[in-house]
């Protein structure tokens, strides 16, 4: 479903991704771990199409299309979803209105019929229950004044409504209390399906106890320096990043 080959990307003239390769098949959950500043969020931003991230080499193929050639909104309509590490507050734009506009914009591009407000409300009610989100958040402006945990949950709630094919979760577990973490994990697990894939960026083994990954990768200094199964995450938890990826000359990270 997703094939990243030798991806190089720069931000403000500085090379951050330095030859990153990764393949994700339909239905798989991949965890990406790695030290601060390694380029994990940069990868998410490049995949979602954020301006200012210049790809200088390599390719990203998503369902046989060149993902990098698409505008961010076209990627979303094609099923790519990024749960932000730092969700943006948008005062004055109502959460429900925003989400319906987003869903209908995607559906329109895909040639599906748009949902009227009754149909949309029904969908939202279902998803709210799964995500343990209170109605009240829906009536507020997008993320405006939300607590850190509420913002993260709102990301997962949006994912549940938008039903992407490829979900990139950037530290969605950071800053969550233990109950919220379980609920978010539950939300992710509820969406796992043979057709849907996940890239989960995280610093903690804990999330992976609840959402068990098929693969774990270590991203250090702009590339994947080690890959393994879930036992790799346990090893990292114990020993840190020291000694990881020693077989790669450029891969050693602090």
């Amino acid at each position: 479903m997703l094939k990243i080959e030798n991806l190089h990307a720069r931000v403000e003239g500085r090379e951050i991704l330095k030859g990153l390769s990764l393949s994700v098949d339909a239905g798989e959950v991949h965890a990406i771990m790695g030290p601060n500043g390694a380029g994990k969020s940069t990868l998410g931003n490049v995949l979602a199409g954020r301006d200012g991230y210049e790809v200088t080499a390599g390719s990203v193929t998503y369902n046989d299309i060149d993902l990098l050639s698409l505008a961010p909104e076209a990627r979303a309509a094609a099923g790519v979803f990024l749960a932000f590490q730092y969700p943006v507050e948008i005062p004055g734009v109502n959460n429900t209105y925003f989400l319906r506009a987003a869903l209908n914009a995607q559906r329109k591009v895909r040639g599906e019929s748009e949902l009227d407000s009754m149909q949309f409300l029904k969908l939202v009610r279902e998803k709210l229950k799964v995500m343990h989100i209170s109605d009240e958040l829906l009536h507020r402006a997008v993320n405006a004044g939300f607590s850190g945990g509420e913002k993260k949950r709102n990301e997962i709630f949006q994912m549940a409504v938008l039903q992407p094919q490829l979900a990139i979760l950037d530290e969605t577990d950071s800053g969550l209390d233990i109950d919220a973490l379980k609920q978010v994990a539950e939300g992710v697990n509820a969406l796992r399906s043979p057709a849907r894939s996940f890239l989960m960026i995280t610093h903690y083994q804990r999330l992976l106890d609840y959402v068990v990954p098929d693969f774990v990768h270590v991203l250090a200094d702009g590339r994947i320096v080690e890959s393994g199964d879930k036992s790799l995450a346990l090893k990292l938890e114990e020993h840190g990043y020291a000694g990881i990826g020693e077989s790669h000359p450029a891969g050693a990270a602090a």
Partner: protein
Amino acid sequence: MSQPASSPLLASLLDAPLPPSSGVAWLDAARRENRASFAAGGLPDTRVEAWKYTPLRALGQRPFASGDAAAGARAVDPSILALPGVDGPRLVFVNGVFRADLSALDALPAGLTLQPLSQALEGDAQPLRFALSRHYREIGDAFARINAASAVDGVVLRVAAGTRLAVPVQLVFVGAAAEADLAWHARNVIELGEGAGLTLIEQHAASGEQAHLATLVGDIEVGEGARLQHVVLQDAAVGASLVRRSSLRLHARAQAGLHVLELGGALVRHDIRAELVGDDARLDTRGVFMPHGRQHIDTQLAIRHQALNTVSSSNWRGVASDRARGVFRGAIVVAPGADGSDASLGNKNLLLSPGAEIDTKPELEIYADEVKAAHGATVGQLDERALFYLRSRGIALAPARALLTGAFCRAVLDDLPNEALRDHLAALLIAQLPMAAEQPS
């Protein structure tokens, strides 16, 4: 500092005969004096600080006919008078002339006096003397001078002490298409007695294309403990020049809330001068100006705190596109003795096109003690992070911009209590945006 008295604007206005005698000696004298000052001073140029960003050169080159003999018969589409959430007494002027047929003055609520100035002057003019015998001394007052010299009509509105009106009062000034470009004027006097309450909707509307010059001068007196909600919807014709001055005085414990939408007009200038003269008075001003095309919209807000523990809070937004220009000056003075006052003023602006311009200038002068004051102004573009967030969810660039811009302007309506009116005004703001068609449905 003045243009030569031979400028076509000046010549045409001074060519017109004085208004017929009002029968009130002091009023006729005030008209003559102000006319003489207007003739001597002419129009201010951009060296006059208050007109620095609003050149009047082009306006000065145009002649205007005075008075519209046919104003009483001009057809006006009644739909322009209808506003959701506003269904009460109404006073309508077309090209400055009172129109009884379009007004709604039957069965006025007890405690409300509402009549055209022309009628009020037929009765006892004495209560109007303070407002109408003023002599404007500064060259920057050119339009107030010509207004004082020429206005024969306008609004007289009084709310008796202790009367809290449940229904809003609507004042509508319509510029209607005519055979020539007209100069017309209106003079408004509004008083809220002690403990009175009033919601006032002031509308500037267009009936057909025209390029008139209109001047409006209004005095609003908010008595002790009185409450005023004042909404101004300016949607004049795209060719119109509209110069207004609103002076407010707030007495002890008075509260006034002002919401202004500046949408229409070619050359628009609004001076708001507020004085908080009584202890614990409070003024909240909110406004948005949205010039597009080649519009020029200038708002000059001046607030003086003159008494103890007075509060003012102002939040203004500007959105300019195409080759339009917005000007905002927010000047707050906390005078000696106005200890314990709290003044805040913010003006945020968005430029949607490279050819658009907004000049903003907050000013704060404090001469009292224990004062809390904050002011700031910004001019910028839309938040890139917010745009990317919306796009990453599937909303295309153009509607994402429209969504963010709409939210930016709508913020000034947040604390408007009349929900039906608020929704209507919000829809007008959105429709005014250059990317209106791009709004997600």
